[in-house]
């Protein structure tokens, strides 16, 4: 079942949390709401769950408008960040509670709980209470509680954020596998771009209550629609340089002080003479000792070894710095002058005043 949000607006007092959000979560897809803390992603999820009302706009599940429908009637399941297990109930009762309040008979509850517990490998924990479980086990119980009712839509609010790094990697894969098995529309909230990139069919990048870009992980990474998305997606973050587009002999160049980078045609026509921002990812920079006009010169400020790669912080004039990522064994001086060549096919140009990508 697809979920459509049309012009959703929500404020808490004077604080506008969601501003005209229009989004469609395609049926049976794993869609992630990604953004920094306070961007409105959890509020949006709670609105879909029916735990918050909207000030304006329309929420549709398939062809049904659900704005005024109670959470219990939406046939959704939600996994909370804190797991929200019922502390006084055993794991068996926790998983079966949703079926019990819906009037399912005992024998069916028992078999459904045991089936889900078997899938999640928590069948030996059924008679314990949540306080007797580890974080990972609680997470599985929360997942089991969501799975047992076979909901149309799965909502997950940062379910991995309380787990340690190793367990998070394992659970990431398992969540993805469960999605394949269950084939329910899944809406997943996270601020962790790695989770979003690895698990999702589509990502909605949000900031300040507005959806900045909606697309596949590859689209948001390779073709960011604005400066926010470009800076938020990717680790280490994208480097930005402010300059102008100049036309020379019919060819466009990005010009910043003495640095001039030839650009391909499509950008130039509309943007000639304008102030723009050039974005380049650290992975798309090669370092060396080339001192031509096409090379950007600076001095090495700091190098950091991160496993198989090395990050080089390079200081340009003033306080401006750029990060380049090279192989760990690349011969890079610890200090002193260095030059960078940018991969012209991989640079991104943004309008300096609107922040939108120029394509």
């Amino acid at each position, binding site marked *: 079942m697809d979920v459509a949000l049309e012009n959703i607006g929500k404020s808490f007092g004077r604080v506008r949390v969601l501003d005209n959000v229009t989004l469609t979560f395609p049926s049976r897809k794993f869609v992630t709401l990604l953004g920094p803390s306070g961007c409105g992603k959890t509020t949006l999820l709670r609105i879909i769950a*029916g735990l918050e009302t909207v000030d304006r706009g329309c929420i549709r599940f398939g062809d049904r408008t659900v704005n005024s429908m109670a959470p219990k009637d939406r046939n959704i399941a939600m996994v909370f960040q804190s797991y929200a297990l019922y502390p006084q109930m055993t794991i068996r009762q926790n998983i079966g*509670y949703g079926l019990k*309040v819906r009037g399912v008979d005992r024998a069916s509850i028992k078999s459904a709980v045991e089936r889900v517990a078997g899938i999640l490998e928590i069948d030996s924990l059924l008679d314990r209470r949540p306080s007797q479980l580890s974080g990972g086990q609680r997470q599985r119980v929360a997942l089991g509680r969501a799975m047992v009712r076979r909901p149309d839509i799965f909502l997950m609010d940062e379910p991995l954020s309380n787990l340690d790094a190793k367990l998070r990697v394992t659970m990431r894969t398992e969540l993805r596998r469960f999605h394949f098995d269950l084939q329910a529309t899944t809406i997943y909230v996270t601020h962790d771009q790695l989770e979003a990139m690895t698990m999702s069919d589509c990502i909605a990048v949000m900031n300040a209550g507005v959806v900045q870009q909606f697309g596949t992980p590859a689209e948001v990474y390779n073709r960011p629609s604005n400066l926010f998305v470009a800076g938020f997606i990717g680790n280490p973050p994208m480097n930005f340089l402010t300059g102008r587009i100049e036309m020379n002999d019919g060819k466009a160049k990005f010009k910043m002080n003495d640095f001039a980078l030839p650009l391909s045609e499509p950008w130039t026509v509309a943007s000639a003479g304008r102030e723009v921002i050039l974005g380049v990812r650290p992975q798309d920079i090669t370092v060396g000792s080339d001192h031509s006009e096409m090379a950007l010169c600076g001095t090495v400020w700091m190098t950091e070894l991160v496993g198989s790669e090395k990050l080089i912080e390079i200081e340009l004039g003033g306080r401006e710095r750029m990060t380049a990522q090279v192989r760990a064994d690349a011969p890079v001086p610890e200090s002193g002058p260095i030059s960078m060549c940018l991969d012209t096919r991989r640079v991104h140009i943004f309008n300096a005043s609107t922040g939108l990508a120029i394509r």
Partner: protein
Amino acid sequence: MNPDRAHRMLGLAATYLVLLATTFLVCFPLIWALSTSLKGKAEIFATPPTLIPHEPTIDNYKALITGRPQYFQSGSERVATGSAPAEFFGRWFLNSIIVTVGSTLISIAVSTLAAYSITRFRYFGRRIVPYLSILGYMVPSIIFVFPLFLVMVRLELTDNLLSLILGYVSLTLPFCMWLMWAFMRSIPIEIEEAALIDGATRLQVFRDVVIPTALPGIIAAAIFSIIVSWNDYLFGRVFLNSLDNLTLTVGVMLFFEGTHVDWGLLMAACVLMTVPMAVLFMALQRHLVTGFGAGAVKG
């Protein structure tokens, strides 16, 4: 013996000695009451006094339970005294149970619902209510007794156990609500939301999730209400007057009236009054600590 070990043992012994002495000091009135209640009339006034009765007897307890008339010994004769509190002891005990249970049930039901409402719904004044509610404890309760008495007169409830139940509710409800408010705030709202999404109604959420989670707080509030209602003298003294309707605290004072004080009976009555509270407190002590602890952190 290793000097370190000897030093540690000595320290431990000193600690236990201090603890024992303090416990004895605190418990001495109760021990004395128990001792006196188990003595015959002659031994009660024996000089020097005895802590452990030489000839223990349960006559005083029998007298209270069977309602034997009170008397004093004059030579070889037993002379009945003016008033007969022992005859009513069973009735007073029952009255105390009725008002304590009644007021506690009302206080707990109202305070739990009020605290849930204050912590879960948004409306004007909800933040200030818990703080205002405990303002009443800043002034002596005698200030409230007479206005409340006038209210009871208007309601024609004087000399009626219902008046005392309502009086105790007015006395215990604010603190119970404050305690439950602090406790409810510590219950994560997500578990209620999870239940709503699971398909529960608001009432089912309250019954299946909120009440079991808030149980330590409810028990703490109930113990407070029970102790206040059971031990109160002032309200009972003002609101009730016929012998049939008195509660234990007021009734036991009548042992002092008449021509002679029967200390054995009086002490047995005191012990019997104390036993239910002591048993209740010991049984629920763990919950009491959890409940008041939550209040301390969140309040």
